[in-house]
C-alpha cells in the first residue's frame, strides 16, 4: 500500500475536520463566559492541524506527481492484516459478550482463540492457561483491588 496516497486522504479528512472546528460554534455547549472562550484553544489547534496536514499532503502529492521512486518508509505492508482483523474482531466480540456471560466464561475462549491465532498448538498447555489465568485475574481483582469484573447476567 502506498503511504503517500493514504497521507493525502487522511490529511484531507483532518483538514475538513479542522474547518468544522473553526467554523461551527455548536461544538461547545454551556459554560461560563471567559476572555478566551471555550473554543479558543481547540481552534488554535485546528489551525495548526490544517498547516501540518497540508504540509504532509503537499509533500505526498508532489512526490506522486513527480512519479518519484517509492521509499521503503512510504510502503505500508499489508502482510498479516487478516490476523489483525481477526484479533480486533475477537476483542470486539469479547467486549460485547462480557457484560452478558461474564469475565470468567468469556475470557478462556478469548485467550484460547488468541493463542491459536498466534500459532499455538500445545492444546493442553493452552487450555490450562486459558482457564487458570482468568481465575487468577478475577480473584486478584476482586480481593486485592476491589475491582468487580462482570459476572454472568443472563439469568
Amino acid at each position, binding site marked *: 500500500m502506498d*503511504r503517500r496516497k*493514504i*497521507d493525502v486522504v487522511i490529511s484531507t479528512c*483532518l483538514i475538513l475536520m479542522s474547518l468544522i472546528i473553526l467554523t461551527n460554534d455548536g*461544538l*461547545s*455547549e*454551556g*459554560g*461560563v*463566559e*471567559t*476572555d*478566551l*472562550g*471555550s473554543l*479558543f*484553544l*481547540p481552534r488554535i*489547534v485546528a489551525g*495548526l*492541524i490544517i498547516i*501540518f*496536514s497540508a*504540509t*504532509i499532503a503537499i*509533500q505526498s502529492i508532489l512526490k506522486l506527481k513527480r512519479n518519484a521512486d517509492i521509499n521503503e*518508509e512510504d510502503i*505500508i505492508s499489508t*502482510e*498479516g492484516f487478516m*490476523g*489483525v482483523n481477526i*484479533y*480486533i474482531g475477537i*476483542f470486539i466480540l*469479547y*467486549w460485547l459478550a*462480557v*457484560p452478558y456471560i461474564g469475565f470468567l466464561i468469556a*475470557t478462556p475462549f*478469548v*485467550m*484460547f482463540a488468541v*493463542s*491459536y491465532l*498466534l*500459532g499455538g498448538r*500445545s492444546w493442553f498447555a*493452552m487450555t490450562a*492457561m486459558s482457564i487458570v*489465568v*482468568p481465575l487468577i*485475574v478475577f480473584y486478584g*481483582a476482586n480481593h*486485592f*483491588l476491589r*475491582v468487580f*469484573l*462482570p459476572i454472568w447476567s443472563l439469568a
Partner: protein
Amino acid sequence: MFDNIINGFSSILAIGPIIGIITGVFIGIIFGAIPGVSAIMAIAIILPLTFYVDPIIGITMLLAVYKAGIYGGSISAILINTPGAAASFLTALDGNALTKQGKAGKALDISLFSSVTGEMIATLVLIFVAAPISIVSLQAGPIEKVFLLLFAFTVIGSLAGDSIPRGLLSCCLGMLFAMVGLSTITGASRFTFGVTELMAGFTFTPMLIGILVMPEVINTIRNRTAPHHNLSLKNSKNRGDNRISFKEFRSVFKTILKSTGIGTFVGALPGLGSSTAAFMAYGEAKRTSKSPEKFGKGSVEGIAAAESANNAVCGSSMIPMLTLSIPGDDVAALLMGAFLIHGLTPGPLIFFEHTETIYAIFAGFLLTDLFLLVIAKSGFGFFTRVASLKRYFIFPCVTIFAFAGAFTAGQNMNDVLILIVFTIIGYGMRLVGLNPAVFIIGFILTPFLEQNLDQSIAIVGTDYHLFFASPFSWVFIALTLFFVYTSARSKKKRAKQI
C-alpha cells in the same frame, strides 16, 4: 535536603515498598527481555494495579519496572541479537558477538554493572539537581509556563520521529483529544455531540494502553509466522569468560562515567530518549578508545558505553518532568500520568507539597538499583528461561491484562470500548508515520497549557505585549526556534545521506 533524603529512606525501607520494588524489578527484567515486549508495555499494564496502593509503593514499583525493563532489553540483545528495547541495539552488536565467542556471561555481567552504575549516578544527579531547579522554576508565572509548554510541544514534536510535520501533527491530535469533555476552565462541554459518557473526556488508562501497548500486540500478530528464538545461556569452560573481573571493570570505568554523563545530559533534554544517548555515548567511546577496531566485534567497552548511557536516561528523564512538568519521552509521559492518577502533580510544587513522598520515591530509585543488581546477577538463568516463553502464551495474557486494566480505571465497559478505539487509532498512527508517544504527551500537557493560558490572559488583559515582557518568554522562543532549526537541519542531512 539531606534530612529529606534520610526521611525518604525511612519511608521506603518498609515491607510494602520493598515488595513493590522487588516485584517491579522481576516484571521489568522479564518484560524487557522478551523480544517484542517493552518496558513501556509493562508499565502500562502494571499501572492499573497501582491505583489501589500507596503512591510510594505504586510509583516506586512502576519506576522499578522502568529501570529493570531498560536493562532487561540487553538480555535478549546479547543472547539472540534481538534487542528487547530499541536502546539496546548497540548492546546487541557487541554483546551477541561476545556470545558467539562463548562469552555470554561476560557480556551479561558488564551490561548489568554498567547499567546499574549509570542508573545510580543519574539518580544521584536527579536527587541533587531537581530540587534546586524546582526552586528556580517556581519563579515562573503562568505566562512563562505557557511559553515553556509551547517550547516542550514544539521540541518533542519536532525531535521525535523522522518527520517534523508528522511529529507536530501527532502532538496536535493529542491536544485535540484532550479537549473532549467538560472544560476545566469554563465548564462548557466540548466535542461531546450529546454523548454523556464523553463529558468526563477520554479515560487516561485505557487510552494509554490502547495507544502504546496494544499496537505491539497487533505487530506480533502480524508477524506471527516469524520463527521463535529460544534464549539460552551457555556457560564457557573457561571461568573467566563467564564473568567480568574487577580489572576489566576498572579498565572501562572511565568510559562508563563519560557515557553516564552523556546519558544524563541527553535524558534531561526533552524528546531525545535513551536510543540517542546510547548512540552518542557509543560513538564517543569508540572515538576515544585505545582499540576502536573491536567495537561491533565483541567490545566490552562498547557494551559498557551503550548500557550506561541508555540506563542513565531513566533517572535524568525525570528531571524535566519533576521540575517543569514536561515529560521528556513516552515513558516519562506514562509516569507523569501515574503521578497524576496518584494525586501528585509533577512540577516544582511537588517538592514542597509532597516532600516526604517525592524523597521516598528518590530513595526507592536508589534501592531499585541495588535490587536490580542482586536479582539480575543471581537470576540470569531464570530470566532467560522465562523470557523464552512462546508468544502464544505471552500475548493472550497481555490481551487479558489490557482488558482488565482498562476496566479497572472506571469499572465500566465504556473504558474497554475506549481501549479498542485507541488500539485502532494507535496502530493506524504507527502505520502512517505519526508518533503515538508525542500524541500522549500532547494529551497530558494540554490541560496545563489551557489553565496557564487562561490565567495569562487574565493577567495581561488587553495588553498583549506583556506576554513578551519577561526575559523567560524570549529565552523559550529562542530555544524553540533553535531546536526546530537544528532538528530540521539534521533530518535533512540524514535524508541526503540515505
